[in-house]
């Protein structure tokens, strides 16, 4: 089955998404994205396991800080001086926030603190999966529909990425890419969505499929790269490694053959494109996230060789499921995030693409405000970062619930009920990427259930 056949099959069975409530809150806009001429990229950085953002956006005014310390006493004690108020990095909240009091970042994040203060980083407050606006009493009485399988890692990763639990087929990153492909972007569709991880749901659209790039470029079959293998033999082997002999009757065999074919051609093309890549002056940290974002920066640097105008990247690191030993384990991860994101920002400056590349973070969920001894348990809403020169930075966007228990947005134990849905968070990113309102609503099925969205991007 070749790519064209495949598309025609998928097209027939694709779920068409209802467009309920469209048109009331949006101005009249074209149905389809315009053919893009400039370059834009979105980079999703996923914190696997559920990042405790109660420990990232920290209450700073004295009463709120004290309340936060009281609830998290055993953790804060174990954290020692790093969570002493004097050592926190206070930030300006900006005009887009609803919150009482002020906030700070932890001392592990000096570079992001600086970028935030320069207006290059924004914070989106209390983001998470929602079907519609939900309060504590709605949650307790099940008065509104709730996202499926809350607090479960794999399902909430899936809901974040695809608005549906495990088994979902298409992520909004992939659907964003689909929209731009149909608008004529990217002559070579294989490189529309790229990841340094595995078969990422987020990047899978009906057309777009994730391409897995190695940290130092494309993977190659040694046999085909070996100069000692004679050309005639190599050509036979090349057809073999392109899966040409795979049985087409059995669907698993067919899928495997297609995977071999796709891998071989994409790797070869990617390899050819990166042959001309220039090294960066920016020094990326050698951390796992640093190495992944370096690979992304390198891919962006050869965007014209890859014939791409619109790309979406997905990177991620694990270790955030800090049920235990949070004081020991989380600081290193926060430092890693700080170094890697700041280097990535710098590398985009080097390419003069600061306004063309927008990075945003995501995670399974936030965590409890209460402590389980030396860690925190699965939560729901969490604060996230958006970075780039197109970002309305230096501001907290949205509502930050107080560091207390049993308020209107506490589902229990300080598991925040989100006040900005993932799809509200995604919409301005998609619009900036070039999607029309119709395409946005198709990619983000629950977006229409909310009247507003955070103004994360500079108009």
């Amino acid at each position, binding site marked *: 089955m070749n790519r064209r056949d495949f598309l025609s*099959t*998928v097209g027939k*069975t694709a779920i068409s998404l209802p467009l309920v409530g469209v048109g009331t809150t949006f101005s009249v806009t074209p149905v389809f994205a315009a053919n893009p001429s400039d370059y834009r990229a979105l980079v999703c950085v996923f914190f696997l396991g559920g990042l405790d953002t109660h420990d990232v956006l920290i209450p700073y005014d004295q009463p709120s800080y004290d309340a936060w310390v009281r*609830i998290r006493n*055993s953790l804060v004690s174990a954290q020692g001086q790093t969570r002493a108020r004097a050592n926190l990095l206070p930030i300006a909240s900006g005009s887009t926030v609803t919150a009482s009091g002020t906030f700070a970042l932890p001392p592990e994040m000096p570079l992001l603190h600086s970028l935030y203060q320069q207006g290059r980083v924004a914070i989106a407050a209390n983001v998470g999966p929602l079907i519609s606006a939900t309060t504590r009493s709605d949650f307790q009485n099940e008065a509104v529909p709730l996202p499926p*399988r*809350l*607090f*479960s890692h*794999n399902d909430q990763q899936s809901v974040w990425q695809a608005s549906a639990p*495990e*088994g979902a*087929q*298409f992520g909004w990153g*992939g659907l964003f890419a689909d929209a731009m492909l149909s608008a004529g972007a990217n002559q070579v569709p294989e490189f529309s969505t790229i990841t340094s991880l*595995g*078969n990422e*749901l987020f990047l*899978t659209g*009906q057309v777009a*499929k994730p*391409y*897995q*790039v*190695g940290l130092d470029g*494309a*993977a*190659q*079959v*040694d046999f085909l790269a070996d100069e000692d293998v004679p050309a005639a*033999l190599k050509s*036979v*082997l090349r057809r*073999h*490694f392109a899966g*040409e*002999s*795979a049985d087409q009757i*059995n*669907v*698993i*065999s067919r*899928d*495997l053959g*297609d*995977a*071999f074919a796709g*891998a071989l051609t994409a*790797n070869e093309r990617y390899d050819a494109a990166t042959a001309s890549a220039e090294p960066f002056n920016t020094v990326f940290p050698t951390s796992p996230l640093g190495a992944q974002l370096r690979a992304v920066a390198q891919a962006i640097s050869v965007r014209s060789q890859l014939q791409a105008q619109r790309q979406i990247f997905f990177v991620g690191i*694990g270790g955030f499921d800090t*049920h*235990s030993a949070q004081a020991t384990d989380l600081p290193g991860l926060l430092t890693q995030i700080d170094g890697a994101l700041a280097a990535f920002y710098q590398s985009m400056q080097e390419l003069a693409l600061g306004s063309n590349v927008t990075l945003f973070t995501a995670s399974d969920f936030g965590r409890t405000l*209460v*402590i*389980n*001894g030396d860690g925190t*348990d699965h939560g729901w809403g969490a604060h996230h970062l958006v970075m780039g020169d197109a970002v309305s930075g230096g501001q907290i966007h949205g509502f930050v619930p107080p560091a207390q228990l049993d308020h209107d947005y506490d*589902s*229990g*134990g300080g598991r925040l009920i989100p006040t900005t849905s993932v799809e509200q968070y995604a919409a301005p990113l998609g619009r900036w990427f070039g999607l029309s309102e119709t395409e946005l609503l198709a990619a983000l099925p629950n977006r229409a259930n909310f009247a507003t969205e955070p103004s994360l991007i500079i108009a």
Partner: protein
Amino acid sequence: MTVFFRSLLVLCILEAAGCGGSGIDGVDEENNIFVSEPDEIFATQNSTARFLTQATFGPIPDQVVAMTGGNASDWIINEFSQPASLVLPEMESFYDFFNDDELSGFASSISTFAYWRNVLAGDDQLRQRMAYALSQILVVSNGGGELLTDVPEAVGYYMDVLTRNAFGNYRDLMHEVTYTPAMGHYLTYLGNQKGDPATGRVPDENYAREILQLFTVGTVALNPDGTPKTDASDAPVEIYSNSDITGLARVFTGLGLSEESFGTNEEDDIATLMAQPMAIFEQEHSSLEKRFLGSVIPANTSAAESINRALDVIFNHSNVAPFVSRQLIQRFVTSHPEPAYVARVANAFEAGTYTLPNGTTVGNARRGDLKATISAILFDEQARTVQSSPFFGKVREPVLRFSAWTRAFQVSQITPQYVTALWDTSGVNSLNQHPYRAASVFNFYRPGYIAPGTASGTLELTVPELQIVNAASIPGYANFMTYMVYGRDPVEEAQELAEEFDEAGVSLDPQAALSSFIPDYQDELDVAADAAALLALLDQKLTYGTLSAKTRTAITEALNNIPLDQDDAEFDRVAVAIVMVVTSADFLVQR
């Protein structure tokens, strides 16, 4: 049937509940054992090899010849009686050869060395396969670079718990797993304290959630055939909420490492402590009422009793049989089993017995019996009939592809300590899979994974292994196998190993690399000049007669480009042909 195979058989009456089956046609006087009539399953070498591909780490050609003409029921009864090859004793054999005060790649790999040895060379093949399958449901991982990496005895003991219980009962397995320090550490309930209203501290919920979601019942109500039950609006029915989790979390408080130490800090004898059940600290166990899944454990119930009752409540949920059965079918036979197949296996799990084709009943009639369950999986008509269904089969797991090669070609010395490529095969440039080293408790792939944007995905078929097949792992696997089949330079390896051993203070002879994992290609070299004969041999050894005409044509064409007059032509022809077979869809998809 040869003497070789007969000698492996034992009295089935020792193991099976009832032996008086119709298919038993006599007693082998010489060995005093029952021998059933030949069956269809072992009728031909290909059918025998197909069965062994599903049930073992790969068929060994001599054994295939010996077993053909025999009876698969006899075989499985014999497997049930094989003593377990355990990892901890095997690990101990390394203790004299390195300095265990220092962390090193070698030191942390000794459980891996022992594991490879047991699964590749052990006689208890079905038991080892079952334990491996269970390890992908009840997941712990030593890939985190912390305690479970540094103290290999923790996962070594865990491996042995699964291996010992592989033919036991799932309820007993839940109990033993719950008390392992490996799971206690991995899911962070080792040292889990009861709540404290004064500070607001609550019990850690990690294990409470995952034992339900991943190990026993899943998230939604299931029919006995594994399909989700639906409500009036056709939506799946979730079977618990977060309050069940907080209720159950109280149960898993008060387990510590030893009677002296609740946590895991700086214990001198940590290797010993991590290789035995956790100890109960009653004063750290929650004395509150524990409410979950519609059950209540009253206040002031002891830790041991609370755990016991909670495991009973969970195990008695009607989801357990279809939830566990479907995943086990996926590991042995097919990725997207028909509901009726799941129902038949779940039925054996529920009944705790299964009657083999030779009339022997296996299992002790207790719900959760794993002998009955695995028998129902392997002897089901869905597994045994050669399936022409386009939806049948599974992608062979990378570990099982590699193991099939080692066994098909009877590699010399299964001594992975001398082959650094086998110390960690989890990398994307390696097998992208290493036993007991998944990236998370969600295993290497999810049982419900539907590969987006594929033909199987369009049909909504679950194909878990496709989750780790991609543009990076495909060349990675091809290169790893090319290296093992063809590309190793043992002299150079021995030199590198000498440096590695030197740094880590290992007093083993690196020259043993020269004789480790060297395949025996003599049969193939003998016919290397004859492409058809070579392919016939490889088809028999690797793909039980299913190598397609297209693949044969491609390999023949490749061989035609390796003329016999060039240096090492025979070896090159054999090696290229093997690499092509093990990277062909015919081999990669087990049908």
